[in-house]
């Protein structure tokens, strides 16, 4: 069966919680566990038999990093990969609606839609098989996972029939508890979805006419899959949820990039053991899962007595002798199997929430200082210790 995949990569105005990491490189290309964030998606899609083409969709202006990435990914995975640029931010549904002809070209009978800012095991083949068992050739499938009752409120909540797995009710970020099953941002659609999106588009047009466009920025073409489409499809017999126990996490804040890294590194022992660093005599001591880029050098005399914990160190940064660079991990509660990473706000009660320390690119940290729970913007040269601060 011919298949396609669409990866929604957003644009510069989206994903601002990922700053300052996204200052140098667009968020979807930021390395997670050693490879660009979306490469994990592409790899999973390329593995599915029948996959004809992978489309990256977003509203970034085309630029060098993206083009280079597309070229090298095509070479590595031997599958056509294109970037479709939306003319404006069209929402999670508006983009695929706009490019529906491209998606369906070549006779695709079904296609996956994946959000770029999630990290997952990507059980795509399983979703296809699930659809065969539970629905029919026209059913849509949402990938779901279990969250704890409090955190579920931060996601799209899915109420499903226990036997048929049909979605009976869908609410995006409810204020009261609806369900522990949450939307993972990975979907399997058929061409029939465009009919439903089209309906929303028509409705939007009519509403705009009625309101006389009081809000100039509101466009009919901006369509959100979650609020506009899924909510309407729930209970109609067309939408199903495939629940997975595999690892899954959102990557919204810089701190979540470290957690996502860890999840993928764990997976490498099975999927890509060659990517994990091994202990070699005379080399650095490797504990646990570690990825070291082939061009990185870890020299015990150059990394003089520094202690770097829970930190993202930007490209070309240097850290002086005996310096301590430390952040606070925002990992989910390890005792709760369904806990998800907090998409915490930067400030709480007027104070900076302790989180991962981030050094932007080309930051210089002098010797013997401590940098704790701080964010240092790129090209900054520090001269003293800092704690719980954003350094511009």
């Amino acid at each position, binding site marked *: 069966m011919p298949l396609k995949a669409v990866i929604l990569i957003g644009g510069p105005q989206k994903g601002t919680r990922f700053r300052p990491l996204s200052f140098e490189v667009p968020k979807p290309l930021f390395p997670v566990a050693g490879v660009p964030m979306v490469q994990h998606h592409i790899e999973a899609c390329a593995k599915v038999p029948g996959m004809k083409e992978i489309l990256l969709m977003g509203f970034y202006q085309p630029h060098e990093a993206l083009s280079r990435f597309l070229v090298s990914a095509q070479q590595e995975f031997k599958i056509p990969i294109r970037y479709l640029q939306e003319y404006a931010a069209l929402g999670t549904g508006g983009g695929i609606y706009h490019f529906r002809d491209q998606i369906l070209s070549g006779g695709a009978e079904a296609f996956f839609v994946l959000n770029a800012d999630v990290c997952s095991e990507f059980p795509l083949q399983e979703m296809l098989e699930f659809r065969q068992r539970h629905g029919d050739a026209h059913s849509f499938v949402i990938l779901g996972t279990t969250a704890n009752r409090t955190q579920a409120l931060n996601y799209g909540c899915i109420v499903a029939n226990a036997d048929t797995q049909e979605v009976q009710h869908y609410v995006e970020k409810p204020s009261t508890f609806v369900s522990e099953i949450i939307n993972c941002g990975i979907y399997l659609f058929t061409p029939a979805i465009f009919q439903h999106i089209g309906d929303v588009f028509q409705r939007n047009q009519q509403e705009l006419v009625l309101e006389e466009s009081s809000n100039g920025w509101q466009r009919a073409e901006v369509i959100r899959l979650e609020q506009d489409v899924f909510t309407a499809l729930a209970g109609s017999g067309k939408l199903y949820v495939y629940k997975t126990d595999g690892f899954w996490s959102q990557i919204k804040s810089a701190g979540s990039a470290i957690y996502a890294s860890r999840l993928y590194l764990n997976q490498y022992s099975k999927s890509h053991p060659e990517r994990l660093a091994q202990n070699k005599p005379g080399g650095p001591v490797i504990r646990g899962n570690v990825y070291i880029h082939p061009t990185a050098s870890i020299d015990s005399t150059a990394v*003089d*007595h520094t*202690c770097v914990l829970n930190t993202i160190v930007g490209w070309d940064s240097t850290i002086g002798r*005996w310096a*301590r660079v430390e952040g606070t991990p925002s990992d989910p509660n390890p005792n709760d199997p369904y806990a998800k990473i907090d998409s915490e706000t930067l400030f709480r009660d007027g104070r900076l929430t302790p989180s991962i320390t981030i050094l932007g690119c080309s930051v210089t940290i002098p010797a013997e200082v*401590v940098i*704790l729970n701080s964010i240092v913007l790129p090209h900054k040269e520090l001269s003293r210790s800092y704690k719980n601060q954003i350094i511009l």
Partner: protein
Amino acid sequence: RRALILVGGFGTRLRPLTLSRPKPLVEFCNKALLLHQLEALRQAGVSHVVLAVSYMSEALGAAMREQEQRLGIRISLSHEKEPLGTAGPLALARDLLAEGGEPFFVLNSDVICEFPFAALARFHRQHGGEGSLVVTRVEEPAKYGVVVSEADTGRICRFVEKPRVFVSNKINAGLYIFSPGILQRIQLRPTSIEKEIFPAMAQEGQLYAMELQGKTLCTVWAARGRSCHAGGCHRGSVPAGFWMDIGQPKDFLTGMCMYLQALRAQHPEKLHSGPGVVGNVLVDPSAKIGANCVIGPNVTIGAGVVVEDGVRIKRCTVLKGARIRSHSWLESCIVGWSCSVGQWVRMENVTVLGEDVIVNDELYLNGANVLPHKSIAESVPEPRIIM
């Protein structure tokens, strides 16, 4: 000649160190506090020292016996059943002190300085009054007993304990010499020498003050119109008579800096030198320091201490038997006896580890005050006490 050292009780301000040892036995610059004082007294011709204690431990008793032998000095014990304050102990030890009819020294056990006992005795003999005390100038006199005295004779006009408004910047250094007549003034009950005895003596013109510095002021400070003071660590000046009340950890470290500086001026051969040693560093011969370390300035390393490779230590005291593991960074800390500090640890801001504390690898301790026998498995990013 005799002397009385006011040892007192539990030394609570110097906890957690004093939870394991009586304060007189805590090593200051690799020598028990009591020993610094006994040696200075011995040099000034004192043959009999009375220790006024309100809590007596076996350790103190054993140490006393050992020092009696070593120094050839007689050490007696005056044990207060109830705390008698700063004057009461003199009454309790009355017989021991009055015997012989000679003036006797009295000192607070917390004081460290270049003890001027001989000069004090001479000064006392010259003016013939009933009591003399040593004064020193400080930047923040309100914490101490403040003295106003006549510049030429040193006779004290006023004595104000912890004044609330500025009176003078000369303070009572806690070192005295008294004629036996003073014992008439003191009864066997809790009495404060500063609040009850001294003001009366000052009124009668019987109390005199000798300045600690003597004649040798450092020229840099003199040019600025200031005298050397006990407020902080000097850089580049040589106080002729340093003074510090080391009863709490912060001041213990400041006093250590001053003592090491005086040692540099008078006995530089006792300080450590070598690769990676910066400034004034005192290292016990039995201690081991690893490769690629940078130690100092102002560090004291006790007996049997092991400092592993790549460690940076500044302004710290490391007590006997402790181990600092590799790549760690310590500034302004006191590491207690037999502690083990892990690898890649950062400790700063007057972190004090009591005896036998274990700090796990890669932690950050900022102003942590850790009680003995604790294991620290989590960082302490802001100052607090760990029980």
